[in-house]
């Protein structure tokens, strides 16, 4: 690619031709403040916060609309630019209410941050502020506050460019302009509606699920990977006191850019309804160690007539251990299945060409890579087997009914009730590991919350491997914690 060299604040930088000036500066450590510019949206250049001085140009230029040119000389820290930024902030704050105590965005608000960094001036505005609609419901998900809105048009561009529903628009003019939906319309059927909340630079758009729940500076962020579908969007899970308060997309250009769908978000926010718990044999709670030894003995004895059904919710690490167990015991019948524990809702998008994939499991690619010989459970011949080790929820009941079931699952579904041996597992926000997405990209994630009354699949497979006399390739959580 052709590269151009330009000078920013006396420093020579080289960037690919066609880069926007704001990106070129940021890549070289010079942050230019902005409200309306977003890396993954088409620039609109309406907030004027990113104005910089370019030599041989009589007026300040918006750096988010200016592509770099060979030999360009840019100044971003002159007194003139500082004066421009102060004036822009003063202009933006003319009608902005001081709602910081009640605003959910306080603590991560771009206007708050940039006022502290670039201005700090007191208001000179003596006239009456323009009062607008304070509480406007954009459907069941989002509330809009027109007074806080700085009409940067980011939300409008997200509905135009990301979800392509064209739901939002800016109406009226001047200090009366506000973001609006068509009369009677809502954002409910926009599958990427919560993205407008994440990317609102101020607190004009707030999500109802998070509204007034917790202040953002208390939340502990954990980098994770969404388990809602096989796209594997990178997300932040934000928790406090072992409870998930908020989920936000994490930027990754290769997978999800800056977006994630509402289905994935509700997958984490809404607590799972039918969680399994405990270790049971014949529906009676037993000690975990007794469970492990009984299951290990059973698998060892009946390896030839056992069907092993792998879970597409399992991490790659768990699958590697399961693979070791299966090959050590010589289990031949290996299957995979489409895990689906919740009912499909009516308006749900099954697949689109943006992010959402048809396959609603996060790690089907990992299962197929670890067990290349695995067949779909629909092709299973039931007369070949007497026992079935079913891992994960969603196995079709009619395919495995009549077999002696060992179920390792985080969800208590119909298979869980039928099983002779039950062990409760963990969901993806409760474990460390990695998922392989549909493109083959392996992504690590970390545990966000501590589950209670369930067991770690990783430790379970290691314990079973030890019980059957193999040398496991991993270590249990206890072993890692007690290691010298």
């Amino acid at each position: 690619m052709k590269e151009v060299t330009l000078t920013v604040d006396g420093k020579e930088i080289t960037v690919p031709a066609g880069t926007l000036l704001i990106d070129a500066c940021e890549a070289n450590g010079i942050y230019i403040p902005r409200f309306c510019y977003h890396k993954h949206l088409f620039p609109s250049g309406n907030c004027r916060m990113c104005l910089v001085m370019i030599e041989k140009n009589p007026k300040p230029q918006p750096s988010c609309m200016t592509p770099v040119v060979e030999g360009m000389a840019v100044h971003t820290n002159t007194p003139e630019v500082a004066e421009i930024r102060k004036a822009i902030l003063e202009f933006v704050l003319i009608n902005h209410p001081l709602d910081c105590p009640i605003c959910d965005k306080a603590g991560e608000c771009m206007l708050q941050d940039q006022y502290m960094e670039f201005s700090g001036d007191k208001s000179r505005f003596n006239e009456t502020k323009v009062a607008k609609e304070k509480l406007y419901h954009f459907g069941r998900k989002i509330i809009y506050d027109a007074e806080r809105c700085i009409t940067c048009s980011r939300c409008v561009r997200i509905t135009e460019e990301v979800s392509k529903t064209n739901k939002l628009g800016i109406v009226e003019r001047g200090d009366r302009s506000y973001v609006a939906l068509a009369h009677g319309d809502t954002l409910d059927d926009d599958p990427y509606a919560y993205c407008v909340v994440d990317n609102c630079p101020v607190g004009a758009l707030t999500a109802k699920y998070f509204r007034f729940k917790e202040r953002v500076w208390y939340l502990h962020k954990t980098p994770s990977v969404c388990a809602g579908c096989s796209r594997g969007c990178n997300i932040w899970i934000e928790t406090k006191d072992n409870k998930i308060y908020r989920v936000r997309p994490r930027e990754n250009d290769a997978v999800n850019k800056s977006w994630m769908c509402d289905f994935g978000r509700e997958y984490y926010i809404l607590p799972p309804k039918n969680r399994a718990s405990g270790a049971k044999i014949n529906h009676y709670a037993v000690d975990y160690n007794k469970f492990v030894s009984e299951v290990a003995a059973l698998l060892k004895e009946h390896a030839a007539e056992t069907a092993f059904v792998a879970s597409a919710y399992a991490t790659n690490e768990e699958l590697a251990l399961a693979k070791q167990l299966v090959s050590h015991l010589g289990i031949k019948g290996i299957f995979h299945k489409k895990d689906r524990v919740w009912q499909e809702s009516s308006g749900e998008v099954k697949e689109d060409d943006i992010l959402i994939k048809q396959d609603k499991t996060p790690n089907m690619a990992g299962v197929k890579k670890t067990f290349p010989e695995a067949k779909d459970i629909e092709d299973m011949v039931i007369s070949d087997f007497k026992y079935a080790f079913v891992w994960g929820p969603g196995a079709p009941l009619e395919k495995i009914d009549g077999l002696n079931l060992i179920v390792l699952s985080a969800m208590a579904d119909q298979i869980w009730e039928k099983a002779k041996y039950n062990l409760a597992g963990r969901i993806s926000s409760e474990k460390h590991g990695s998922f392989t997405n549909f493109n083959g990209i392996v992504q690590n994630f970390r545990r966000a919350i501590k589950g209670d009354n369930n067991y770690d699949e990783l430790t379970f497979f290691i314990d079973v491997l030890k019980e059957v006399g193999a040398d496991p390739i991993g270590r249990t959580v206890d072993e890692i914690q007690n290691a010298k």
Partner: protein
Amino acid sequence: MEYVDRKKRGLTIQVYYREIFRGVWITTKHFFRNLWKWLTFRKGGVVILYPEETRPDMSPNNRGRHVLVQRSNGQPRCVACKMCATICPALCITIEAEESEDPNIQRRPRVFEIDVSHCIFCGFCVEACPVDAIRMLPQTNELVGYNRFRMIYDKEKLLTWHPTVSDDVVYGYNPKA
């Protein structure tokens, strides 16, 4: 085996008649001193009749306990922004927010608790409050409770103080004024 590091008692303590007479002397001293105050009509003599009277020698700088300032309809002025809970060095303030029916208020505390047994009375919460919803009043100096759970003051208890002055007049400890 002796596990407790006890001091050896001297002979003067072991012969405790001396200590008895010393105690009687202290009691007598206080009796005559209070009697003399009472005879000369000075305050502080005899005893304080506690719930009716408060101590006259309380310093004017005494901050007292926290109160939540009310709106005219009796609702707390607090918007549950958790600034006080964030600044609190003793981590004794617990707040949970909820949505108010009034769209002009929007946010109000559902739970507001101060654990006064942990509080160090630094006054940071009063300074941090952006809406002047929490103050410390010298009048409310009675910090009593039979156990430590009685010392957790909830929203109802913090709202028992009814302002006799206008909201514009800063009253109590408020360094911003």
